[in-house]
């Protein structure tokens, strides 16, 4: 996912892409409390990057987020968005340029979906026709049918739908920066998974700068280009790519937060399309039996994948099946139960391979057409390669870090992205 950072041109010409966010020595103290709630946070977030703040409850991650749009005024420190110092400008004007999405309770229950989405453009003085068009566009963008959902009230929607509307509202005025405060905290796990996928898809199209707060480390790994693991008072324990945090946690606190099964979580970060897909002998249902026999013998395998008329995986055929088929393929072979797409994570692929009785799964592309096969061996090999590469990266990175620490004593900052600076000589 690290490649999403503004390397590909924006698919939507209309969209304003992300802006940088710089936090400098940001501190929040509350009256009567000697300990600051947020202590001296310094952080740079690149344009178009998704940064996830993750940490235990009460660590100040939410407070830090709310200081970016100054819902909570910082006691000291500076905030810069897109290079502009916004620490002292009018907070109302600032917030209209920064999208804000929270849990479903953030929708106004007395306004329709359309009114909820259109409210920020309306406040900024867009003409009515433009607002209407924008509302339709946003509903479409978050995967809700405009005709159907336009006039509904939030209470007539499911939790997941409300959340989509919340994201649509945050994006309606096309802000370069989007702040999300545990937006998927209140929905069930299945819906949450869908919403996360949608957000990844959206971000691929829009390239906003997203700051996302969660206490769920798996969510952080899935969504973040970089993750800031925060401990109490918002001290940054580690600020790095998900890969680096998984393979090389900075200290016990971070590894405690990563939890068990880092290698398994690593599988979530790689897509099937990134690993080697083996070719498999195939035949289509229209092929004459004789041809299929020939191909089986030539392929040297015991099995052949039968595709249907549209090129989609249909049946696995063994030699023995063909012997018994007696001229008709109608009853021979075993049906293909499960396939994975190129965009599926390796974890999904592993799941499919483990449940398949022969330990392989067909990979499909557009419209479910066959593209290749992944089996246990490929998976194990690619995971090994991946972990090895991560380890090398992390070592290099650690070296970098130690050097920069020796140079400037600022322990809080993790440095910008692994592998960007070349290896030290």
């Amino acid at each position: 996912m690290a490649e999403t950072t503004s390397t590909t041109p924006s698919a939507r010409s209309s969209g304003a892409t992300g802006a940088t966010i710089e936090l400098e020595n940001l501190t929040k103290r509350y009256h009567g409390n000697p300990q600051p709630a947020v202590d001296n946070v310094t952080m740079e977030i690149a344009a178009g990057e998704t940064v996830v703040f993750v940490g235990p409850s009460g660590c100040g991650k939410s407070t830090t987020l709310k200081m970016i749009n100054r819902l909570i005024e910082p006691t000291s420190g500076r905030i810069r968005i897109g290079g502009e110092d916004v620490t002292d400008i009018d907070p109302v004007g600032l917030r209209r340029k920064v999208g804000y999405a929270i849990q479903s309770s953030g929708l106004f229950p007395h306004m329709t979906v359309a009114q909820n989405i259109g409210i920020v453009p309306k406040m900024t003085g867009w003409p009515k026709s433009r607002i209407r068009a924008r509302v339709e566009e946003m509903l479409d963008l978050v995967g809700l049918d405009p005709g159907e959902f336009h006039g509904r009230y939030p209470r007539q929607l499911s939790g997941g739908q409300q959340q989509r509307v919340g994201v649509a509202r945050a994006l309606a005025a096309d802000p370069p920066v989007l702040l999300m405060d545990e937006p998927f905290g209140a929905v069930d796990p299945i819906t949450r998974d869908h919403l996360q996928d949608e957000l990844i898809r959206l971000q691929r199209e829009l390239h906003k700068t997203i700051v996302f707060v969660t206490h769920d480390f798996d969510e952080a790994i899935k969504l973040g280009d970089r993750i800031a693991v925060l401990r109490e008072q918002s001290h940054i324990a580690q600020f790095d790519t998900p890969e680096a945090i998984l393979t090389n946690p900075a200290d016990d606190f971070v590894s405690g937060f990563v939890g068990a099964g880092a290698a398994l979580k690593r599988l979530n970060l790689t897509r099937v399309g990134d690993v080697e897909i083996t070719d498999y002998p195939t035949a289509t249902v229209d092929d004459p039996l004789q041809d299929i026999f020939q191909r089986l013998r030539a392929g040297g395998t015991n099995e052949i994948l039968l595709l249907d008329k549209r090129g989609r995986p249909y049946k696995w055929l063994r030699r023995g099946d063909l012997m018994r088929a007696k001229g008709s393929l109608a009853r021979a072979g075993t049906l293909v139960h499960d396939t994975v797409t190129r965009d599926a994570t390796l974890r999904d692929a592993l799941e499919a391979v483990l449940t398949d009785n022969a330990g392989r799964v067909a990979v499909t592309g557009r419209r479910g057409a066959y593209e290749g096969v992944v089996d246990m061996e490929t998976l194990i090999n690619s995971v090994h390669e991946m972990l090895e590469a991560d380890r090398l990266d992390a070592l290099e990175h650690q070296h970098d870090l130690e050097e920069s620490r020796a140079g400037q004593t600022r322990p809080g900052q993790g440095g910008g992205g692994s592998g960007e600076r070349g290896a030290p000589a």
Partner: protein
Amino acid sequence: MSTTGGRRPGGEHEVRGLVFRDDGEAETEPEPEPRPPSPARAGRRISRQKLTLLPALLIAVLLATWLWFRQAELDPVSENALSDGRVSKALWQHVELTVISTFFVLIIAIPLGVLLTRAAFRKATPVAMALANTGQATPAIGLLALLVIWLGIGRRAALIGIIVYAVLPVLSNTIAGLKANDPTLLEAARGIGMSPLGVLTRVELPLAVPLILAGVRTALVLNVGTATLATFGGGGGLGVLITTGITNQRMPVLVLGSILTVALALLVDWLASLAELLLRPRGLEVGT
């Protein structure tokens, strides 16, 4: 409150049941669900029963009273008290007293309630509530007597008495309604860039409307009742008929005054309940 008549008939739970069923691709499929509310729904909020039952009852009572008076033999004292349009004048005065006092109650209590829920004035809330409480705890007739001593006989003293008496329900309901709003919702409103005034007018007040209206309804009914006391301060109204009936021991006059007062109170309450249903923001009724 007996406002249950306006609930949407059934169907409200189907919507909630969707939570686990949909999402992902399923959303594009047509769902067997009540259509989104259209403007036409406004009419459906009020059931036919609600619309007709009470007016029919009132008409029946008034008709019966009128028939009884047509055949009743009235002595000169009663005749004198009821002739020359005195009844309609008293009724009209009563309506005026009610309307004017309610108007002032609204423009005093609602802004005061808004003010007292702002951060800057929140500390003054207990004091203001205590004052409003005293206003209502004081016997209305005692309050009126004091005001007459202070301001002299006339409609002004009567009106002020009625207003002081009715501020409390509207004020306390306004405060309660505004305080009941979900703080995270208000934070979201500020977070998307609403000014403090915008948050108040677009989010806080609309959401507090049901409670505020309930307070207004209480105040209206109270005012119809208290206005009968205006006669002691020289303010007129249906109280004139009642007191005349009592002091002269003329049953028909007393009965007519009472029946008209009761009918007016019920009518006002009915109108207010309709207003409550019509003015409540859409979207709040599902699941509440």
